C-alpha cells in the first residue's frame, strides 16, 4: 500500500452543485484553510454535519491532480441527516472536514498485473478518482476495466467521460451493466456478477469492489470460486 498522509482538519466552501438526476448529485468544494489537500485516489473525507458531532464519510470523486478542492458524488436516496445537510448547503457555505481518510487505494506492490473495478450505483465514486489518476497522471499501461451496475440506463452519468477515456486509452474498458434494461440495451444486463461471469477474470489482477455490502459479498464469492486470492480483492463498503 502506498504511504498515506495523516488526516488534517480543513474548511472548504461549496463552489458548485449539480443535480444530475434523482440518483446522483455532485457537490464541488473549494478549500479555504488549509488550501491544499493531498490525497491518494480512493480516499474519502469525513464531514462534520451537526454541532453535536455527527459526521458522514464521502469518497472523493475528483482526481488527486486537483489539490485546491474536491468533488463528491452523492446518492440522495437515504435522505438522512448527511444527505439533507449537503442539499441544504448554499453556494459559498462553509463546511468542516477531516481528510484524507481510508485505505481503499490502488496496491502499489507491483503484484497486480491488471485492475478490475466493480461498482454498483454511487460506489463508482472512488473509481472515478482512481481511473483519472491511473490513466492521466500515472500513464498506467495495465488493462483497467470498470464494471458499473445501475438499475436504469437513465440513471447513468459520466458515460461520455468514461467512453472518451476508453477511446483515448486503449487499456481502459468501460462496462456499464443495467439490471432493468430495455430490450434495446446493447451491453451487459442483469447484475454486475452476471457481467463479470462472462468476462475473463485473471487471477493476477487486483479487484476493487465498492458499493452495497450484498454486492461486495456476491462478487467476493464469485471471484474466490474463480481462484482469485483474497489479498487481491479490495473492498469498500458504503452501506
Amino acid at each position, binding site marked *: 500500500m502506498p504511504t*498515506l498522509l495523516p488526516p488534517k482538519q480543513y474548511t472548504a466552501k461549496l463552489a458548485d452543485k449539480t443535480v444530475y438526476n434523482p440518483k446522483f448529485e455532485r457537490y464541488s468544494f473549494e478549500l479555504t484553510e488549509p488550501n491544499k489537500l493531498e490525497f491518494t485516489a480512493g480516499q474519502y473525507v469525513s464531514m462534520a454535519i451537526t454541532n453535536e458531532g455527527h459526521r*458522514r464519510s464521502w469518497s472523493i470523486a475528483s482526481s488527486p491532480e486537483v489539490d485546491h478542492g474536491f468533488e463528491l458524488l452523492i446518492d440522495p436516496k437515504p435522505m438522512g441527516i448527511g444527505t439533507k445537510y449537503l442539499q441544504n448547503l448554499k453556494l459559498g457555505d462553509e463546511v468542516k472536514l477531516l481528510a484524507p*481518510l481510508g485505505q481503499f487505494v490502488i496496491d502499489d506492490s507491483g503484484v497486480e498485473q491488471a485492475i478490475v473495478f466493480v461498482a454498483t450505483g454511487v460506489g463508482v465514486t472512488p473509481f472515478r478518482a482512481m481511473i483519472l489518476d491511473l490513466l492521466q497522471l500515472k500513464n498506467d499501461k495495465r488493462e483497467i476495466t470498470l464494471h458499473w451496475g445501475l438499475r436504469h440506463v437513465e440513471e447513468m452519468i459520466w458515460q461520455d467521460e468514461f467512453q472518451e477515456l476508453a477511446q483515448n486509452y486503449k487499456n481502459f474498458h468501460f462496462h456499464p451493466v443495467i439490471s432493468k434494461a430495455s430490450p434495446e440495451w446493447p451491453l451487459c444486463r442483469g447484475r454486475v456478477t452476471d457481467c463479470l461471469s462472462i468476462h475473463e477474470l485473471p487471477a493476477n489482477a487486483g479487484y476493487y469492489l465498492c458499493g452495497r455490502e450484498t454486492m461486495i459479498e456476491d462478487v467476493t464469492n464469485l471471484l474466490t470460486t474463480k481462484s482469485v486470492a483474497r489479498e487481491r480483492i479490495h473492498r469498500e463498503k458504503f452501506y
Partner: protein
Amino acid sequence: MTDGVVRDQNGNLSKQIGKYKVSVIREKCIAAASCVAIAPGVFKLDEEQIATVISQDGNDDETKLLAAQSCPTAAIVVIDTTTGKQVWPLIE
C-alpha cells in the same frame, strides 16, 4: 478519585491522562480505518482487519472523540470515566 487524579503503582498521586475510555464494537467495524488514521496511538487494525484499542493514553481525549465521531458505522463507544456516561454515540 476525582478530577482524574489517580494513584500510580508506587502509590504516588498523578493526573490521569484522559477521562475518555474508548471501545470498539467488533461486529460493526468495516475496517475503514479512519480511527487508526486519526488516533494511531489508540487504535490499530488487528489480523482480522478489525479495529482494536492498543492504549487508552496514546492520544488525547479530543482526538479519541474525533476518531469515534468519524467512524462511518459508529463502532466506537466513548465513555467519560469521571461520570460513567456514554459520550459517543449520542444517546438520542
